[in-house]
């Protein structure tokens, strides 16, 4: 747990910023030196296991209230003050509800599926920097770790669908897995630009690379053309990876009842619910790390606010964005979703890789200076924007869709 | 732990993989056996890299990476073949496949 070298600020702001780290150190120091790293680790795990489910609980109620507001209504507000205890009631209900295992189901796999899902998703938080020096497992290949873990959640979804022995479940699971595999490619490729620019797979290094400010504006990757494109692609792919609207086919599919967890009830269903939201939050966390400066402040003069506050603030904004999309958009069809992944997302993210490389070399060739910067910026933006427009138009034309006009009879 | 321990694990894994590949009738299971054998080899590579004298510091590790890549390619082509065969013959049974030969 070494302090970041670039961190020069002192006084109460830094204490507040590092408060959790300090607490962790103080507590660990109470133990014999052999156990200290373990105690620190366990404290970190406890922190993650306590904080993120709490945010999950908060998210469920915020989602319901937010959706409600978009739909001219209030949302849950009667259970506890402002409905804040709603998730507690839901949790008690879910925990005590009868757990049905269908007669024909494969009981062991049926039980393991939600457990595997939740464990895998929790593991994903191990390398997520939620604040300055606040990362549980500072490993070098952190981003790879996240993607590796993310890939294994597919297996649990398959297990859930297959073990239920219900054709809706199986079909839903197959769809979910196909969707997740397809969108993993653009997800990875869009993340690669940030890795490329930083030259590291470590989330901390990526955050650090976005740490500086030009004037008051930060050096976040999202403010570059390739970064913006990468971010947009990452968001879309993340929506699909986490089965959120408008890609929520596997579960909300109106012809497949409830997809792969149709046969789940009670506690196991709650675990799926938890896993889904935790997955959404973790992928949002990585999006923030990769493109939105992680725990960095958006303006230089706001840097006194603790880093973890910025991280969680951004996380809540991201969650709100997910909710906002859910409140607005209808759902795509499976084949359209696949088409979109392979014919739009993939070429765009490949192009974005090239543009990112070009950006790098253009920077070297053109040298510094406002003019050179502007040329580089405009050139990259033009290539990306132009391709976006052309590719989009081609997609619409191929599917023969577009606005229509209508005639009238008197 | 010693190198030998890892190598013994790898050897046992290899033997198991071989056993699966030799005894199972289902083509997919045979592929699984082959994958296990490849993995055993990988474990060897890594173990030797870890405990070996480091003349070439990364060779073993990189070799394992290449091996993983090749194994992935093998798996995809192999399973593709199995599916294609299944579509043709409606079976994944190797015994029956050989019976249909000719």
């Amino acid at each position, binding site marked *: 747990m070494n302090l970041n070298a670039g961190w020069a600020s002192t006084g109460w702001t830094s204490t507040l910023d590092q408060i959790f780290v300090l607490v962790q150190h103080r507590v660990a120091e109470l133990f014999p030196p052999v156990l200290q790293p373990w105690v620190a680790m366990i404290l970190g795990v406890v922190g993650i296991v306590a904080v993120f489910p709490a945010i999950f609980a908060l998210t469920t109620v915020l989602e319901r209230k937010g959706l409600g507001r978009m739909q001219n209504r209030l949302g849950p507000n009667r259970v506890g003050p402002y409905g804040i205890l709603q998730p507690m009631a839901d949790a008690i209900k879910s925990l005590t509800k009868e757990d049905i295992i269908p007669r024909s189901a494969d009981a062991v796999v049926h039980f393991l599926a939600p457990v595997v899902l939740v464990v895998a998703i929790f593991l994903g938080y191990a390398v997520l920097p939620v604040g300055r020096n606040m990362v549980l497992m500072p490993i070098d*290949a952190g981003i790879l770790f996240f993607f590796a873990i993310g890939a*294994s959640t597919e297996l649990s979804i398959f297990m859930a669908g297959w073990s239920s022995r219900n054709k809706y479940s199986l079909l839903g699971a197959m769809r979910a897995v196909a969707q997740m595999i397809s969108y993993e490619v653009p997800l990875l490729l869009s993340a690669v630009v940030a890795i490329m620019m930083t030259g590291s797979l470590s989330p901390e290094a990526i955050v650090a690379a976005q740490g500086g400010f030009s004037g008051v504006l930060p050096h976040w990757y999202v403010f570059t053309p390739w970064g913006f494109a990468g971010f947009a692609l990452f968001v879309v792919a993340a929506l699909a990876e986490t089965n959120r609207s408008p890609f929520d086919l596997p579960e909300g599919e109106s012809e497949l009842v409830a997809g792969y967890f149709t046969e789940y009830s009670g506690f196991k269903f709650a675990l799926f619910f938890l896993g889904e939201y935790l997955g959404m939050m973790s992928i949002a966390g990585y999006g923030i790390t990769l493109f939105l400066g992680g725990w960095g402040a958006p303006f230089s003069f706001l840097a006194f606010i603790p880093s973890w506050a910025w991280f969680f603030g951004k996380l809540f904004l991201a969650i709100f964005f997910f909710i906002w999309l859910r409140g607005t958009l209808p759902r795509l069809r499976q084949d359209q979703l696949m088409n979109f992944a392979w014919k739009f997302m993939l070429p765009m993210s490949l192009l974005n890789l090239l543009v990112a490389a070009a950006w790098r070399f253009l920077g070297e060739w053109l040298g510094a200076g406002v003019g050179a910067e502007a040329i580089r910026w405009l050139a990259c933006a033009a290539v990306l924007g132009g391709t976006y427009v052309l590719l989009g138009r081609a997609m619409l034309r191929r599917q023969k869709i577009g606005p229509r006009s209508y005639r009238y009879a008197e | *732990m010693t190198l*030998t321990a890892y190598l013994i694990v790898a050897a046992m894994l290899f033997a198991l993989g071989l056993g699966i590949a*030799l005894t199972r009738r289902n083509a997919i299971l045979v592929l699984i056996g082959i994958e296990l054998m490849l993995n055993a080899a990988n474990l060897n590579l890594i173990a030797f890299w*870890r405990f070996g004298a480091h003349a070439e510091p990364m060779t073993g590790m990189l070799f394992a990476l290449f091996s993983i890549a090749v194994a992935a390619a093998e798996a*995809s082509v192999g399973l593709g073949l199995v599916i294609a065969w299944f579509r043709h013959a409606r079976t994944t049974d190797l015994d029956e496949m050989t019976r249909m030969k000719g």
Partner: protein
Amino acid sequence: MMHAAFFLTFAVLTLAGAVAAALLRNLVHCALSLTVTFAGLALLYLSLGAEFVGLTQVLVYIGAVAILVVFAILLTRGSGSLPRQMLSSSGWRVGWLAAVAVGFVLVAALRDAPFAQSQGNAPVVSVKEIGQALMGPFALPLEIVGVLLTVALIGAVIVAMPEKPMLENPVLKNQMPEKQGGAE
């Protein structure tokens, strides 16, 4: 001690998964126990300090190969328990005998083999170093692997390409580009 405990746990996990894959009758169960083996191996790699390889193992084997196997099983309608004689080939006794023999010989040989062995800490290899090695001395193998993967991808697509335009399988079919026309 700690290390030994970890090693034993991971080794048992790996081998148990492999044994289950060898003995279980339900193909999907076999595939799932195979993933246990893969996960155990990844943990072994991590315990050996090969972080990058371990993670790649998870990404490739659990994230891709295991899913592929599972899909292949479902596509060939192989899920569900099958009777033993449907699973084992005619000469399964001989097969196991051969496998056990090979295993025995290998283990016996390894037990006494005098390997030169450094007992130091694991060499620390950063991802950057791996990347530089791949781009430097190992550039050619990397290219070859790249070509191999491309060829394999194309080959797999061609092999799996249906004779008719529509695959029976919903998942693969959806990746087919053409949209169906409306009913006339």
